[in-house]
């Protein structure tokens, strides 16, 4: 398709972008120090790695609280409401259509940033995987205070198991997530959007009502 069919859309607000890249930094540090604590390699040294992991983990908890506030006060939570509509079309697209040069069945718009697969993935991530990771991480960190907190019947072993499983799941997400950023109309289109906030998308795409997370119109340049 030709370039004049493209329009610039302001997709990601400043806070959203900041939150995304802050997450990236925190998760990167957590993964690196976490796997060192798991005994995989020596980078910072066990003691330092644990200190960094604890510090960054607690910082993450605070940062996440701001995200929760943001997602609810801005109504952005609606972007995460799962749907099955067009899901098969999206799956078909990534398994087949993408190789044929077809257009994406659910293009991005300000009021509908996520396709059905993304909605489900990000919901699972933000509402399930990350909270589990935060809860088990916090428990792990507070192990010595369990009796003061009245926590019984949980073993460190179980907490460690879940936390470790979560870590693997997040790693797997990151691999796929980073790859998926290359599937925009150029390899770095999505990455650029997450840095500047603006993404080039196709013109004249009808947004179904069910897709809409926002009432207002398009933010066009």
């Amino acid at each position: 398709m030709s370039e004049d069919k493209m329009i610039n859309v302001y997709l990601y607000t400043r806070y959203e972008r900041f939150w995304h890249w802050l997450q990236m930094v925190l998760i990167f540090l957590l993964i690196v120090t976490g796997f060192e604590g798991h005994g995989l390699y020596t980078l910072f040294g066990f003691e330092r790695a644990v200190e960094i992991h604890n510090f960054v983990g607690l910082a993450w908890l605070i940062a996440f609280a701001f995200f929760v506030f943001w997602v609810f006060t801005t109504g952005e939570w609606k972007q995460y409401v799962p749907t099955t509509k067009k899901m098969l079309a999206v799956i078909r697209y990534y398994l087949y259509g993408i190789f044929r040069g077809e257009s994406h069945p659910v293009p991005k718009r300000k009021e509908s940033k996520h396709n059905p697969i993304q909605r489900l993935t990000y919901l699972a991530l933000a509402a399930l995987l990350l909270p589990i990771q935060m809860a088990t991480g916090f428990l792990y960190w507070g192990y010595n205070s369990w009796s003061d907190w009245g926590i019984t019947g949980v073993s460190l072993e179980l907490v460690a198991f879940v936390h470790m499983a979560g870590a693997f799941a997040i790693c797997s997400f990151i691999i796929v997530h980073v790859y998926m950023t290359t599937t925009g109309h150029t390899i770095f289109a999505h990455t650029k959007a997450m840095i500047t906030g603006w993404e080039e998308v196709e013109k004249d795409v009808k947004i179904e009502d069910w897709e809409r997370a926002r009432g207002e119109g398009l933010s066009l340049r």
Partner: protein
Amino acid sequence: MKQIKGVLQFLYLTMSICLLFILTSAAGANQKDTEQVPGRFMARQATKAKTVWSTTDHSKHKALQQEFKSGAAITGACLSCHSEAASQFRQTIHWTWLGGSADSAKRSGKAGDSLNNFCISTNNMQDKSCSACHPGWNAKDGEINCLVCHSQAEEMNWTETFEDFHAFSGSGDPEELELAQEIQESILKSVQNIGRPTRKNCGSCHFYGGGGDGVKHGDLDSSITNPNKDLDVHMGLDGQKFECVRCHTTVNHNVAGRIYSKPATTDRKSLIEDDLTPKIMCESCHSATPHKSGSKANDHTDKVACQSCHIPQFARVNPTKMWWDWSKAGKKKKGKPYKTKDSLGKYDYMSHKGEMKWAKNVKPEYFWFNGSINTLTVKDVIDPRNVVQVSAPVGSREDINSRIFPFKVHRGKQPYDKVHKTLLAPLLSGKDGYWNTFDWQKALTKGMQAFDLPFSGQFDYVETSYVFPTTHMVAPKENVVNCIECHSRENGRLANLSGFYMPGRDSFKLMDIFGWAVIIGSLCGVVLHGLGRVFTNGRRGGK
């Protein structure tokens, strides 16, 4: 333009966040050295008055300015002022050599039925060579020798000294009389130079237990007499200069700290909780949270003894004995007993003792320990198919009084009765002792007779182990055991302790395999998908 501005804004924001994190964690590291750590602060307070003072000068006491012809006379002079000292001291384990036992049927202690895997037994105090360390003039029969612990003069061989004195003083030869005079002067020097026990006093027995320097304890040997801070951070002459009694506080001659069947103390109280508590536990001065507040090390103190991290190795200056195999004893060269030395200059073979192994800078072994040690007696039945634990620490992870504690484990082989399945206590010294006769049958028969216990006549050797809690030779904080030495997958110091999940050491094998499979699967998936896009030159693939 707007886009570039956005990029710059974003970069600036991200970088400042990263900087913030790095700076705050770096500041935490710098603080470590300057911040007042509560435990160190308390310990400093407890040791504030470094000068030891006394209100008396024993050389000025009339009772001590007389001619002493016997040990008993010296004791009499001491007791003429310290009227209760003898009755107090005779109750203590230093005199009785009997340890209290939870099981009253057991007569534990050196003078009782307890055994070890060094010289094995005192044979009910009938092996006279053991009595060399008993603080009486004639072992338990007779008066107390106060000077062993209290005289600050040179150590003396009192039996010889009095023998010589009597021999020379009865002579008509003026030269010999003069010698007798000199001997009496050295006696008086010892008698009049009195004080609280020093490292040297305590060390005269405790550094040489088992028949030589550093034989028994790995953390107590002659190197502690005048240690530097590197060897012991409390006793170091270039530091706090602690004497033993600084921590081994004493009430009525009962010295705190003996670990036998009962813990040295059951309380882990600090001096701010109870200013009269014995100072024997690290917690007494350092509290239970001695590290910088918020430090992970403070979280360890409920399960890990201070000693486990703060004594990285024992026997750091002098070697200590790690192995003693009695079964090899009795070999002779040209019909004569002989000795050989190892590279450390220590005997690795002695005909009358057997084969020995010595080591320096030994990493301790770690066990759960609640302060009690279970020691076998000569009456206990053993299972010779396994290594027999002549003494073993008592404790478990579930016990709130237990901590992971470092031990020296001394191993060896010693004789046991093949019929009665008990360990045997050979008589070693004296006319009938093994060291004179090299006859096991006779030594074992005589040795067991001393206990009035049967010996079947059939014996063999069994491998045994014996434990010593490691608590001295506390290293400066720069030299403590690093986290990774325990929290590591392989060869960690705590590899033998099971029943709990330890981060860094333990993992879930299956989940690790599954987890990596998922990660590798994801990688393969995206690589294949990406290649697919390149080859089909599909939408946006190749650009």
